[in-house]
């Protein structure tokens, strides 16, 4: 385990492990993406392929006490560049 542990030194190294793998990205504006990560840089700009975008739309008009329904809008894109200033987190896809 020793030689392996020395591999990861900073958070960007973790992201590096996910290169070519499917990742889950959370963005600002209640958006989420899953896609295969092909490129990233220090600003967290990403280039993903086979992307599915999910936009959360909260409908608060359902009930007065704030409990609204959540609608989602999904989109697929073959190749996408994501600007880093909108990225909140990057992680491996949630394994069920």
């Amino acid at each position, binding site marked *: 385990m020793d030689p392996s542990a020395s591999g990861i030194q900073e958070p960007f190294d973790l992201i*590096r492990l996910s290169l070519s793998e499917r990742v889950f990205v959370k963005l600002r504006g209640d958006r989420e993406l899953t896609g295969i990560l*092909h*490129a990233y840089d*220090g600003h967290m700009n990403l280039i993903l*392929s086979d992307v599915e975008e999910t936009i959360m739309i909260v409908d608060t008009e359902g009930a007065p006490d704030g409990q609204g329904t959540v609608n989602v809008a999904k989109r697929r*894109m073959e190749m996408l*560049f994501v600007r880093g200033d*909108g990225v909140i987190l990057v992680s491996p896809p949630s394994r069920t």
Partner: protein
Amino acid sequence: MLIFSVFKTLTDQQVTVELKNDLSITGVLKSVDQFLNIRLDNIKVSDEARHPHMMAVKNCFIRGSVVRYVQLPAEHVDTQLLEDATRREAVSQAKR
């Protein structure tokens, strides 16, 4: 310089830029700079009705910071090369 490098290879390709104000512009990528400012020619706004003020605009310059996504043509992107370039960038970043 990675993403700048990628965009350099995509000039004269059709891309779709989605801005942070939800405006989506499709056009031919004419030039890009180190701040990822984009120049598009022959633009077409995806939802004309919502943005009528863009109807007369043929070419535009987009400040890099207002971009959310850029949809790229998958066939003009070499994912393997992207990953390699990212690894190199990561290595050089770590060195610095």
